[in-house]
């Protein structure tokens, strides 16, 4: 068996496992077996993702694995696996307290795997139409998950997410059609005019004005999915009202997938040469997301909503970094995407534990964790400090790189950037103080769920802050160069 076929097997593991698992989980009753099967399927997917690191399949007209997406596939499958471990124990508690019924649990697990399939497919898609279909499928799956508790607030959140997400996705499709229209004039009809790699090779032949118009639709469409201001309205509601494992996956993975889709189109524009520079638009959207979310972080009284705004803030930083472009800022953006995924899902794991023991999501109901649940308090504090950008964690390093590269090239833009980061830091530190110290609120039951996902993420974020393996750095640099 040669190396290429290993890559093909790995690709099938990454896509086939969640597809098969979704079908099986939809039919199986019982909480313990399905939760275990969900974990096993996610682990198999992760193994597939890791094999892809070593050997890749030959790119085809539909699927393609390259330097850029393989890192996101690994990140996606890893967080998918740890979240499934967290979810297994978390959902058991929800079942006992009666927030979820066994029938909905079956649905939940099937949708979890559907969502993983859709996100992995979006990442490895070479065909722009396939990319769109995958993002659409991920939207539908997550909408159903957000509404699963069927409370007033959950239904409102799901409806809002659905309407805004569908309109966004419709705009993205129109943008995709325009890109094909431009390609079809230069390259003729058929599959190559929809395949990203052939488009990139012929990018300079495409009509730049059509690409400009297409990119605006793409940015609005996929930007809605990434929660960029002013298309962010669905994001805090969806994060606050769905089950916590889904908040972790939404923040940690789905937002990355949307940013990834925008970047693929940005690469086409950059390769074209004559099209408008996407940088300034992305810088403007990134900065406004960062500043808006940083100020919105104050006066939040719902823990999950607070960290949802923090996700908007971080997506703003990522978009800003890629808008700046250049090797250093792109490097920082890639690192920040990875660190934010790990850090933010860790925060949601910790918040999930806290809301279960305290029985509320309100921040003023979760106080004094330090005296009632010391381990959880440490985990929450470390996770929040990491996401707020304290050294020595990886998020500090990536933010530092964004800021320093901005200072070197556009010192004026660095002022609002630093201001936004500091304002957000203040809000998170203030909230964290009350949750960890202060008068303990009622609810002293021990945490039943596993701490393993939380602390493994924190360990990775901490290690990445002080030491990145040399091959990883070289690889990030190669991808950063590819992004232009």
């Amino acid at each position, binding site marked *: 068996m040669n190396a290429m076929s290993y890559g093909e097997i790995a690709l099938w593991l990454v896509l086939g496992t969640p597809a098969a698992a979704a079908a099986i989980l939809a039919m199986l009753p019982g909480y313990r077996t399905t939760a275990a099967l969900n974990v096993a399927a996610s682990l198999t997917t992760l193994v597939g993702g890791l094999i892809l690191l070593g050997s890749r399949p030959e790119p085809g007209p*539909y699927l393609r694995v390259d330097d850029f997406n393989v890192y996101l596939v690994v990140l996606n499958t890893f967080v998918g696996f740890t979240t499934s471990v967290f979810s297994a124990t978390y959902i058991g508690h929800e079942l006992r307290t009666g927030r979820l019924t066994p029938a909905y649990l079956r649905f939940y697990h099937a949708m979890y795997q559907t969502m993983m399939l859709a996100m992995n497919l979006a990442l490895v898609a070479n*065909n722009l*139409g*396939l990319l*769109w*279909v995958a993002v*659409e*499928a991920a939207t*539908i799956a997550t*909408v*159903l998950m957000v*509404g699963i508790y*069927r409370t*007033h*607030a959950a*239904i*409102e*959140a*799901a*409806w*809002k997410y*659905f*309407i805004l997400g*569908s*309109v966004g996705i*419709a705009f993205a*499709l*129109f943008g*995709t*059609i*325009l890109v*094909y*229209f431009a390609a*079809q*004039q230069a390259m*003729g*009809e*058929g*599959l190559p*005019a*929809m395949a990203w790699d052939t488009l990139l090779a012929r990018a300079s032949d495409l*009509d730049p*004005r*059509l690409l*400009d*118009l297409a990119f605006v639709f793409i940015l609005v469409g996929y930007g809605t999915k990434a929660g960029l201001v002013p298309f962010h309205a669905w994001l*805090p*509601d969806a994060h*606050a*009202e769905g089950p916590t494992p889904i908040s972790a996956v939404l923040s940690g993975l789905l937002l990355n997938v949307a940013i990834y889709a925008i970047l693929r189109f940005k690469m086409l524009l950059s390769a074209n040469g004559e099209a408008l520079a996407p940088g300034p638009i992305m810088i403007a959207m990134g900065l406004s997301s960062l500043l808006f979310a940083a100020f919105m972080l104050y006066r*939040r*009284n*719902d823990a999950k*909503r607070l960290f949802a705004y923090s996700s908007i803030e971080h997506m703003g930083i990522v978009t800003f970094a890629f808008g700046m472009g250049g090797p250093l800022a792109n490097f920082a953006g890639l690192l920040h995407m990875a660190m934010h995924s790990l850090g933010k899902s860790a925060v949601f794991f910790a918040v999930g534990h806290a809301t279960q023991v305290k029985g509320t999501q309100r921040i003023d109901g979760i106080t004094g964790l330090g005296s009632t649940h010391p381990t959880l308090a440490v985990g929450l504090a470390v996770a929040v400090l990491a996401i707020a950008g304290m050294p020595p964690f990886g998020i500090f390093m990536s933010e530092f790189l964004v800021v320093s590269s901005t200072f070197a090239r556009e010192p004026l833009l660095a002022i609002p950037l630093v201001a936004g980061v500091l304002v957000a830091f203040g809000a998170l530190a203030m909230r964290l103080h009350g949750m960890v110290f202060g008068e303990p609120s009622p609810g002293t039951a021990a945490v039943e769920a596993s701490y393993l996902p939380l602390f493994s993420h924190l360990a990775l974020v901490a290690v990445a802050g002080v030491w990145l393996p040399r091959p990883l750095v070289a690889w990030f640099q190669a991808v950063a160069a590819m992004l232009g």
Partner: protein
Amino acid sequence: MHSLAFDIAHMFAGAMLVASFALLYQRRMSGIVDTYVVHSLILTVAAGWQAYIQDAPHLYVTAAIALVFKTLIIPIALRRIMRRLDIHRSVETVLGIGPTMLLGVGLVALSILLIFPVTESADAFAREDLALALSVILLGLLTMITRRNAITQVIGFLSLENGLILAAVGVRGMPLVVEISVAFSVLAAFVVFGVFFFRIRERFDTLDVQALGEFRGERR
């Protein structure tokens, strides 16, 4: 080349735009669903005509999907929901009919001004088809914005999807994967919508989306 063929294709695209305007001024629930059926029927014919003049048999599949799902299954399901929930009254609009129509005309002008300058090199049919399709999309969006009722919002969204498919069939040789997936995702989306209707009905006893606004997460 086939100037008559192109004229006929234009006629269908233009007819869809007219149907979009009709959706915009309908007030009765049943009238809105009827207009949506006409809208989808024109899409079916337009897709079928494109299949014929482009000699692209896979577009017949798109036309068939539009015919079966959009002119039969979806309207039947919508009518069932309306019967079950007993909603036949007229729809409240946010704006009056006059201003809404004026806005619609403005949107059509906008899409023509947007598409024409960037597609000078393209063939005349494709660029005008794209401009008409974008108008249909924007009018669908306007329908969604100006209605407070969940079902009319859904129909606004479905007409927006029709506009997208009109754009996709008008561009020569767009790979099949897109059209089929769009059609299926419309169905999937519809199932989701259906689930939501029942939930909304069950919880609020109204399909007026305004009622949802009371349950903001922050004010619990």
